[in-house]
């Protein structure tokens, strides 16, 4: 991965990559509320995340799941940010017909977002 990042930096200034290349994430649930914490592998990419992984884009990414609101809490000390996303769990751990009622897999939906570096 480091080699890939190196190439992206030096050879093309605006290359599209999935967020998965730059960051790691973990999802957690409380009722119908999902949180996804996102962290840059390299602190140098934190500003890219701040610029491009916005509340609006995350709301659009989860729109098909009925997301009603996204709030983003930046945590510069951790080179990360916490997203709190409401109403995407289709009933949550108890009510959902989805196989994954917790929404635990959704950290990787966020990581599938495309960003430019």
């Amino acid at each position, binding site marked *: 991965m480091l080699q890939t990042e190196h190439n992206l930096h030096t050879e093309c200034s605006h290359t599209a990559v999935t967020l998965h290349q730059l960051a790691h994430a973990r999802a957690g649930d409380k009722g119908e509320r999902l949180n996804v914490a996102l962290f840059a592998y390299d602190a140098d990419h934190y500003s890219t995340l701040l610029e491009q992984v916005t509340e609006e884009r995350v709301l659009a990414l989860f729109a098909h799941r009925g997301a009603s609101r996204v709030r983003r809490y930046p945590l510069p000390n951790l080179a990360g940010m916490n997203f*709190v996303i409401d109403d995407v769990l289709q009933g*949550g751990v*108890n*009510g959902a017909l989805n196989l994954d009622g917790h929404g635990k897999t*959704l950290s990787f939906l966020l990581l599938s977002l495309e960003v430019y570096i």
Partner: protein
Amino acid sequence: MSFLLGSGAGFSGDRTDAAVAVVAELIKRQQPSALVFETLGERTLAAAHRTMRDDPESGFEPLLDELLAPVLRDCLDNNIKVLGNFGAANPSGACQVIADLAAELGRTDIRIAQVHGDDIRQQLHHLDLQRWEAERLDMPGDDALISANVYLGAKALADALAMQADVVVTGRVADPALFLAPLMHHFDWRWDDWNRLACGMMAGHLAECGAQVSGGYFADPGFKDVPGLATVGYPIIEVEQDGSLLITKPANTGGCVTEQTVKEQLLYEVHDPANYLTPDVTVDLSHAEVRQLSPNRVAVTGIRGKPAPERLKTTVCYEGGWQGEAEISYAGPNALARAQLAAQVLRERLMFRAPAELRTRLDIIGLASVFDSDSGELQRSAATSTSGDYRLRLAAEHSERRWVARATQELLALYCVGPAGGGGVRRQFQRRVFTASYLVKRSDIQAYASLFETALIGVRRSGRHAAN
């Protein structure tokens, strides 16, 4: 000298051999320590209440014996305090199991304490309840109500340790309070020393999900590699008198404790990082920093505390009708088209074979499932090969069992009347539990600890043996 907090389990269903390596490390260190079992999820408690209706001697963590048997003797011999919310709906039942286990080890001198006060079902309708801000569901009627439990703080647990309990058994408490309690007892921190309380609570937060901070739920091959996932070491948190804390794990175990594993767990199930609400303190993580000191040793600094919230969170569980699932596989040439045809046949059948209020969802596993919406938006737009290995999944819910049974039976029937080559049908349905979250006034809740009646120790199991 630091106090050591070890995790023995992070959820009901966790590995039952995890505590062994943790206890071995705690003994080796020869420091004051506690071992904590967190086994009670939002929904686990409702399941326990329901089980207890059928069998009054159940209702606690079903794996309790299996979790404690390998380590109880070592903990008692080495003064490692054991705390767990494995009491679930029936803490006194769990106390009895532990007492019996101790008796088998020849340790009838064991002191077991039980925490009371979380079960508020009886007084629920006399309480001043506020709906939790993200809650969408209304309070159910009495007939549907299964359980109502408050997330208690650490005070009654610390009181139990002051009674010189070896083992503290609770029902619903805030998970990290299981870890904060032994710190409060050991360091004698004040209950309004918000910064230290916040550090202790976050020590608990980091350890409460077991291996999730030490390499579990983390691996992403090629990006985040974790050695020895099959033998991950569960976390040990070293906490100092001033509240500073460090995460590590037992020697010679798999897994890893890195800045990345700690960061992911630090924010797990957290919403506003500046206001993480717990029963004993409001935690501010916005200045938190993590630092790798050496391999598998990570310090967390900058945790701050603010006064505890006025209200305590309460989870109400109630009957949610029936839910069922059934699946069938299609593989090889044109498999996707056959799976899609099967889905279409089911949709048509259910139009006239089930009532309109039957809620259903159809996934094609291998094409789109867990990311998809109930209406299958991604499934329709996903581009993929028509040959492959796909599994059609039906999920259905209704207040009456018979309609869920009917819907899943319609999938079963695809064996003979569906598209060609369908196989591997699995079908199951069960009662469903809904949960809703409310906030109660702290002053309305009376939590306290009591020592389990030691005269009873050894009685029941010997009675069982006699019966055998």
